[in-house]
């Protein structure tokens, strides 16, 4: 497996195409890999997660399932324990509620409860994110919910390049991986992405390790730790902050479980100022976890801490209301200024 390639990589892909390229490659290599979800065959996934796959692999391997998450996610667990490598999709992460028992009590726990004698090599993909007025039951990210419960690795790519490498790792990993892809980063015609997620993507297969955060922008004055869509918003905020003479370092977590403490601590040692940005709810989640970890290990390095996250209310429908409670680019810039 090539972890490098001759020459400069110029060919760009949207995040959805990068994910699909990885899945297709793994499916060609291994017959035991298959994809199951709602509207994944002819429709190609409502967020383009399987676009073109049915045409190449057929209805057996790109499998449409009934609206029956408990049954099909549980079936993915059973097929994985039998040694296959299913990729099972939650059409919206918000639907986890109807199937959470199979996810957190079976998929996430069977390895441990069996003392490692059984393993569950499946990928659970899920579309996350708001900002398009789909309201409380279809707009969540729920990063904290999945990161909090033990037994599942959790990844959140923010670019096409990261998406492909993380997907290869997720499929090959013998453990369950929750792969959370943001709807607005996919590059879907009817939900335009910001500029950032479309990146050059190597043609060859490659794996990005879990638990490795990526410094997307180096800086000296503040450490912004974030994930998913807000990597790009933080980069945008960094541009306007630079004009004011504030040099922001932007760290893209890429993985929640396991979490890359080292990269964060190194950065805070340098800047002394921490801003954590998360599209998930503020309380009892990602922002609290990052701040706690830094406080535990490097309290002396910390001069200022700010959290930017969704307010602790369900996500409202009307545009002005949703914009109020979800983090905006300007909120990131304001938080940074508070630390200076």
């Amino acid at each position, binding site marked *: 497996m090539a972890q*490098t390639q001759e020459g400069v990589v110029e060919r760009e892909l949207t995040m959805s195409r990068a994910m699909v390229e990885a899945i297709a490659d793994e499916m060609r290599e291994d017959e035991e890999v298959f994809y199951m979800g709602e509207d994944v065959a002819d429709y190609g996934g409502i967020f383009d997660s399987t676009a073109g796959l049915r045409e190449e692999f057929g209805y057996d391997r790109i499998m449409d399932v009934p609206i029956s998450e408990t049954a099909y996610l549980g079936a993915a667990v*059973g097929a994985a324990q039998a040694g296959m490598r299913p990729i099972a999709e939650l059409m919206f992460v918000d639907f986890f509620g109807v199937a959470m028992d199979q996810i957190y009590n079976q998929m996430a726990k069977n390895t441990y409860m069996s003392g490692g004698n059984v393993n569950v090599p499946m990928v659970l993909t899920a579309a996350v994110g708001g900002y398009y007025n789909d309201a409380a039951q279809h707009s969540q990210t729920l990063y904290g919910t999945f990161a909090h419960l033990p037994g599942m690795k959790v990844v959140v790519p923010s670019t096409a390049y990261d998406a492909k490498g993380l997907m290869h790792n997720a499929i090959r990993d013998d453990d369950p991986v929750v792969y959370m892809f943001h709807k607005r980063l996919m590059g879907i015609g009817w939900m335009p992405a910001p500029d950032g997620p479309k990146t*050059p993507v190597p043609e060859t297969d*490659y794996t990005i390790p879990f638990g490795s955060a990526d410094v997307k922008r180096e800086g000296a004055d503040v450490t912004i730790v974030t994930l998913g869509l807000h990597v790009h918003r933080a980069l945008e905020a960094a541009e306007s902050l630079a004009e004011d003479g504030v040099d922001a370092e932007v760290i893209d977590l890429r993985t929640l479980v396991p979490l890359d403490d080292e990269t964060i601590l190194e950065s805070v040692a340098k800047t002394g100022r921490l801003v954590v940005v998360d599209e998930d709810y503020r309380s009892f989640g990602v922002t609290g976890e990052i701040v706690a970890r830094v406080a535990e290990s490097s309290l002396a390095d910390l001069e200022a801490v700010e959290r930017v996250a969704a307010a602790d209310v369900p996500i409202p429908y009307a545009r002005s209301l949703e914009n109020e409670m979800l983090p905006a680019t300007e909120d990131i810039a304001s938080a940074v200024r508070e630390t200076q």
Partner: protein
Amino acid sequence: MVQVTELQDMYADMVTARHYEERLQEEYMEGKQPAFDISAGPIPGELHLAAGHEASGAGVCQHLRDDDTVTAPHRPHHVAIAKGVDLKRMTAEIFGRESGLGKGKGGHMHLFDPDVNFACSGIIAEGCPPAAGAGLAAKKRNTDSVAVAFLGEGAIDQGAFLESLNFAAVHELPVVFVIEDNDWAISMPKGRVTDVENGSQRAGGFDMPGVRVDADDAVDVYEAAREAVGRARDRNGPTLVEVQVHRRMGHFMGDAQGYRPDEDQEAAQARDSIERLEADLRAAGVEDATIDDLREAAHERVEAAIAWAKDQPKPDPTAAHEDAFVNPPSGVTDTEPEFELAGGDD
């Protein structure tokens, strides 16, 4: 026609299971008296014993191979024994020892034996979807393996069960669902929580055959299972089988069963599927001495397993942090790839 050897196999499974549950009941109560402290003694936590269910496990598993998958609920020991689970390591797991099936991390409700594809779990109906998944894998791989999901009659109202029936039916999976009807879901008699008279009727709503075995009889179970498992192996789709059993003990150990009328408990004690099978054995010409030998061997096997288990070391506390994953946290690699991307990134 059931072969005599098969009758003897089932009898061996059933007396092993009965003796096992009776002995575990004794072991469990040790250290917990006089005041019942659930976390005390060599077997802490809950314990759900299957005395009275033996015909179901034996009759169904007689048709299964090691490569067939079985999922069972929290009252699994009779099924595990009939499926061929490693009895010593299963017992060690129940006693929370390091050499148990799960290194002491699963306990009695979460027993996994991958060598015979057996797993049980503690949430009602939870094993149904993974059983369907095992059937799905068999179908995709084009083998003739089948999957069997056991569940209690208290589980037939749970979404996981109903969804699994539909999923198995629409995808024509080689799965058999076996409802063990012992009339009681903890303190709830069947009729107060379900509107149909029998769980097997649920099959009608899913376009699948539904069979009810009324008598607490291993041979009747055997016959019904032969057909259902055969259908699955021939790739003719799933079947729902319901088997009447009886619960000779409480729902869990410590259950005083105050809700259960005396006549019901007495009737349960009087119906003994093991005695019925003994009668069948004699009718088939098996001598008393042979029957005694089988029973004797079963008792010895149980005693040996319990003695072995109690002799095993307890887990080292640091082991609590291990086995959440089989691969390293970083997955299949721990190094970043090196590419030169246009635009100067990475």
